[in-house]
């Protein structure tokens, strides 16, 4: 990856645009780090729209707002439509001379997996198709955590949640995750990427790249959930790392239709390590067929990504596009 978008850890720390201390995210929750990295990465002033969900409720309990930037929460399924409106207003007001044209502002929407893969997909798809200039960041914790750990279409196969509980006849969720980054890339937007909170450098680069592009951009960042997944609260980053190292959550990007895998685990960790690290998969260890099915799915995903990456060779695209 070309390094023009990198930021040193020192510089990132110096910028330190963060949520105010005292927000109510669970101990160990990694999305405050996602917010801090995002806001610190930006070279521009940003306006944020936030979908209903954990991030919104824990950072905005009146009268103690934690956000250091203009922020708007509208409803659960409409963060993308809301930011479309803000961005449209910005364009109109610049055109009419109300807002000075040299005041460059970037627009970011944050949504959980429920607000993005499920109920909010229509509004996100519409906004992407219309080509608004905004970055949508999905923090993917693989469930509706705010309402008490229900399955979403991002919840992995086999995971036990309160609406896909492991029982006597069912072993948790029966369906695989939706490939949200591919779905967004298929809209023909200029940039879509998958990242993880555990790989800060990769994530920061992706945010900076996305913000440098005019038009709709999308990043899905893996963000484990302490109570939802069932692991000790000091292990969030580690769990996210195992997801990447086991190949369960590949880091890749799609730029103008060209796929690129950003990281290949050198010594892949067995998927069983990922499953063993969390309570939501505890029952699965008694279902070897389910584990096989999960492995098949992961291999299938990698085959797909590697195939898609070949387009670069065919078209002779070596660098960023």
């Amino acid at each position, binding site marked *: 990856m070309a390094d023009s978008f990198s930021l040193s850890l020192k510089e990132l720390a110096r910028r330190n645009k963060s949520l105010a201390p005292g927000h109510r995210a669970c101990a160990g929750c990694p999305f405050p780090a996602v917010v801090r990295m995002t806001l610190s990465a930006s070279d521009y002033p940003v306006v944020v729209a936030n979908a209903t969900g954990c991030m919104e409720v824990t950072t905005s309990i009146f009268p103690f707002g934690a956000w250091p930037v203009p922020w708007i*929460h509208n409803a659960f399924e409409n963060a993308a439509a809301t930011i479309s*409106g*803000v961005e449209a207003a910005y364009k109109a007001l610049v055109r009419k001379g109300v807002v000075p044209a040299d005041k460059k502002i970037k627009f970011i929407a944050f949504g959980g997996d429920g607000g993005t893969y499920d109920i909010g997909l229509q509004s996100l798809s519409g906004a992407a198709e219309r080509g608004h200039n905004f970055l949508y960041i999905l923090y993917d914790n693989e469930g509706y955590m705010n309402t008490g750990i229900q399955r979403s279409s991002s919840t992995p196969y086999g995971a036990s949640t309160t609406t896909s509980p492991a029982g006597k006849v069912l072993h948790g969720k029966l369906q695989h995750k939706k490939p949200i980054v591919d779905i967004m890339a298929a809209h023909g937007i200029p940039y879509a990427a998958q990242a993880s909170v555990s790989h800060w450098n990769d994530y920061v680069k992706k945010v900076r790249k996305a913000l440098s592009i005019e038009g709709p951009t999308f990043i899905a960042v893996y963000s484990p959930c302490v109570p939802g997944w069932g692991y000790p609260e000091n292990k969030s980053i580690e769990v996210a790392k195992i997801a990447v190292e086991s190949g369960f959550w590949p880091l890749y990007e799609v730029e103008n239709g060209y796929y690129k895998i950003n990281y290949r685990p050198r010594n892949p960790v067995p998927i069983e390590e990922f499953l063993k690290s969390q309570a939501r998969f505890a029952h699965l260890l008694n279902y070897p067929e389910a584990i096989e099915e999960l492995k098949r799915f992961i291999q299938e995903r990698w085959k797909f990504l590697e195939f898609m990456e070949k387009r670069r060779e065919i078209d002779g695209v070596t660098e960023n596009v």
Partner: protein
Amino acid sequence: MSETLKVKQALTGNEAFAFAMKQINPDVVAAYPITPATEIVQIFSKYVADGEVDTEFVAVESEHSAMSACIGAATAGARVMTGTSSQGLALMHEVLYIASALRLPIVLAEVNRALSAPINIHCDHSDTMGSRDSGWIQIYCENANEGYHSLIQAVKIAETINLPVMVTLDGFIISHGMEVVETLETDVVRQYLGKRKPLYNVLDYENPIMVGPLDLTDYYFEHKRQQIEAMKKAKDVIEEVITDYNKRFGFDFPVFAEAYRMEDAEYAILSMSSAAGTMKEAVDVMREKGEKVGLVRLKVFRPFPYEVLQEFFKNVKAIGVMDRSDSVSTMGGPVFNEVRSALYDLDTRPRIMNFVFGLGGRDFPLSDALYIVNRVKELKEGKTLDFVEYVGVRE
């Protein structure tokens, strides 16, 4: 009388709405088509395509997103409008409450149409009555001319009190019927409205604010209470704006309600929107026969102008309230219930009954209007009648 040049144009209700929007030249319009309001979006798109407005037009993928984008744009300080009808308004329902509670002066051109099921594209008021508690000001117009002027006034009202306003016209009856509309000049409209001065602005990143945070048990009630207070104050604002508009441009639009031949009325009908035209004719017919009957056309339904109705009805013996929707409560329509409640404390409390009519666009002929007047006459004369009657339906 003012010197303002007025231009008479033959316009349909939808054209009148769209023309007013062109003159208003909002910063952002986000909208989605639905019969019978589709033309508003189409005509406005053409204005955008022809450069007749410099509005940012967002052709969203649903009404839910239309209102959501309007909310986003309005928080960024823009003057914002949209248009819809029926299922579209119902799909906006969740976000209508957010627009009003965030005190955003969004203006909605609404064309009344029945709600599904069964699916029906014609006029009744079940759509807007369904959002009556959403915190929006609601203005019901009798004809396209009033719709045109009310939409312009709505921008002023909304931006003075910082509450959203929907202005309604009856689907097809008005939206597609051609009328003479007396329009103002574009310059005059733009000068009259000036620029929006927002309460707050999320583009002001040097002074960041958080809009729409979580209120728990300790603040929600107080914030709602403030919103209710704003709605109370909206009554003064509506009165000021319409009175001033009449004076400035030489009109005599009623403020909250129009009284027709009410001076010495012994009994009366309360009606809204286009049906009031037919009802006025029925009143005339009965007056010819020496009947002391009058009509009150209710124009503003939210905030509910109960003081005005108490004044109009303090001397009548019986009232028939007309509803073009039913609340399916088994005790009549929404207008009926609110009017009855408003008159409960009068010293000379009139007898009141409800007439539900015209659902799904069912025609409302003069014969039905005369039937209603005659029933209210019987009510006045002491006859015991049903609480609610359904007029014009096969039973």
